[in-house]
């Protein structure tokens, strides 16, 4: 059953991947102006300085003289072989640049994920067990406010408090966790809090709702009735089943984190892929933009697949659509 489901899902992915790549390919065509100049990073004012002949040569070099579907196929063929082209700004292969930036995104995502789970699981469980008490209201207040607050504003406010006023933490920058772990933690602290909160807020609510649901189930009543200690009932029984349901939420959130938190990385000058994208946009380095957008979308599509399969495997009763 599971194998059949996986095969079906993978087949469904093929048209999606084609459409996604087509969208990313067409993205640079939406840019106002001559695509040849755009893709070569030539200022439209300098167009006059290029002779018609040179222009044709350039156009031919980047394959823009061919029909658009041939251009797409050539481009897709290169992508499949791991060739994302060269960055306009640095003239280096985009794949290399992305690989350089990826670790920073990965470390931050890992830290934010751990922090988010560390907040959300206890908060959700306690809120459910102590439903309609002050603790519950506090947890729900946190959940509602955490979802509503724009992450970039939260980031700025933390920066004001902890960097500018108290001077405890650096406001921007990065250090490698292997070379100087302490410095890394100092730099990663604020962005991880922001991203962790973004993850924890909806998750707390989700876990609370799931727990409330589970605590009403017959098997929990049986567990109480046979005299199991509260911790066993709550943690071993109810929480375990609640977490199965939370897998989807956590999985999708993780996929998002892996895509790089564009705004947060930009605010904290964190050298990950999210900031690479924004910098690429600022510098009009469209091949970089194309590459990163494609990479993030692909990561997300595959993460989605993995989450769904994992979920189905955890809980075979689930009928996934």
């Amino acid at each position, binding site marked *: 059953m599971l194998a059949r489901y996986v095969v079906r899902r993978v087949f469904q992915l093929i*048209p999606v991947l084609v459409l996604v790549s087509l969208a990313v390919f067409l993205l640079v065509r939406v840019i106002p102006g001559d695509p040849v100049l755009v893709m070569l990073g030539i200022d439209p004012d300098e167009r006059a300085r290029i002779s018609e002949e040179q222009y044709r040569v350039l156009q031919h070099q980047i394959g823009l003289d061919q029909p658009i579907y041939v251009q797409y196929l050539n481009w897709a063929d290169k992508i499949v072989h791991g060739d994302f082209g060269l960055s306009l700004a640095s003239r280096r292969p985009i794949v290399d640049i992305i690989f350089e930036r990826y670790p920073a995104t990965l470390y931050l995502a890992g830290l934010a994920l751990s922090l988010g789970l560390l907040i959300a699981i206890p908060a959700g469980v306690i809120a459910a067990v102590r439903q309609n008490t002050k603790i519950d209201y506090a947890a729900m207040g946190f959940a509602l406010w955490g979802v509503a607050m724009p992450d970039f504003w939260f980031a*700025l406010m933390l920066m004001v408090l902890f960097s500018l006023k108290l001077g405890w933490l650096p406001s921007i920058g990065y250090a490698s966790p292997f070379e100087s772990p302490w410095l890394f933690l100092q730099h990663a602290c604020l962005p991880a809090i922001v991203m962790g909160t973004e993850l924890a807020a909806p998750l707390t609510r989700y876990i609370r709702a799931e727990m409330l649901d589970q605590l009403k189930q017959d098997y929990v009543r049986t567990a109480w009735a046979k005299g199991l200690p509260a911790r066993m009932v709550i943690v071993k029984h109810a929480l375990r089943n609640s977490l199965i349901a939370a897998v989807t*939420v956590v999985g999708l959130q993780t996929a998002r984190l892996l895509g790089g938190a564009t705004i947060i990385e930009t605010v904290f000058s964190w050298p990950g892929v999210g900031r690479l994208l924004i910098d690429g946009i600022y510098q009009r380095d469209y091949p970089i933009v194309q590459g990163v957008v494609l990479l993030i979308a692909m990561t997300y599509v595959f993460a989605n697949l993995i989450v769904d399969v994992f979920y189905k495997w955890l809980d075979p009763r689930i009928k996934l659509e």
Partner: protein
Amino acid sequence: MKQEALPQAAWTAADRTSSGLSRFADAFRVIARNRLALLGLFIVAAGIFTAIFAPYLATHDPYEINIANRLQAPSLEHWLGTDFLGRDTYSRIVFGARTAFEIAAGAVFLGALFGVPLGAVAGFSGRWIDSIIMRFMDAIMAFPGRLLAIALVASAGGGFASLYIALGLSAIPSNARIVRSAVLAQKEREYVEAARMSGESDFTILFLQVLPNCLSPLLVRLSLEFAHAILAESSLSFLGLGLPPPTPSWGLMLKEVTPFLQLQPLAAFFPGLTISVVILGFNLLGDGLRDIFDPRQYER
């Protein structure tokens, strides 16, 4: 994942009603009893009111520059202080409501205009039409969070028109999915069979009989969609990819005063607080609506 819907089962399950009276009269009564939803309704109403009557509520011209008065703290003259050009923060926030609601309304409208018929047709006709439409929706959804909007405005440029399109396009798939699953559930009902027997065309059945019955989950979705659009607009403007200066946009206001955080953090505090409160309002209203229409509706 900011506005992703979460299950509400236990949140205010007590507020369920199922009388035969008009659903909307019911809805209003339940909102009135659910304090959080009422708060949401109040915030949203206040936001709309501010957007409409901005010129009467503002104390200053939101564009008036006065360098001598830059980055002031709140005072009787400038209720929420001034920004880096000495413009009145309160008046800019008031006019910013106009910007935010205009963009959000446009984006939500576009998202519904395309999303609803697509989802309805997909759900109603099934099989290959369904597959084709939903694969397109999946492809749009493959761009997580703000990525699609960022990518679109990065290539098409900022400004009102491209924000409508970028944010509207991102909203299409979720509308389509909601409507599709609602239509799927309605399709098997007897009244559809009856309409078919009496020779009604598929078009009439779908758009005049089935779709009106799918409005409640859609309404919940649209409320959350509004919050999403407001957040997305301010995010993009904060990155400098959305609205150009000197438009009074909450996100842009934050971006503009970020270099002066040390000098006057309050100039950044108020615009962000406004965004948070407005989004909270739409989320609470959406939650309240969900409790009314379907307390047990789970969506992924």
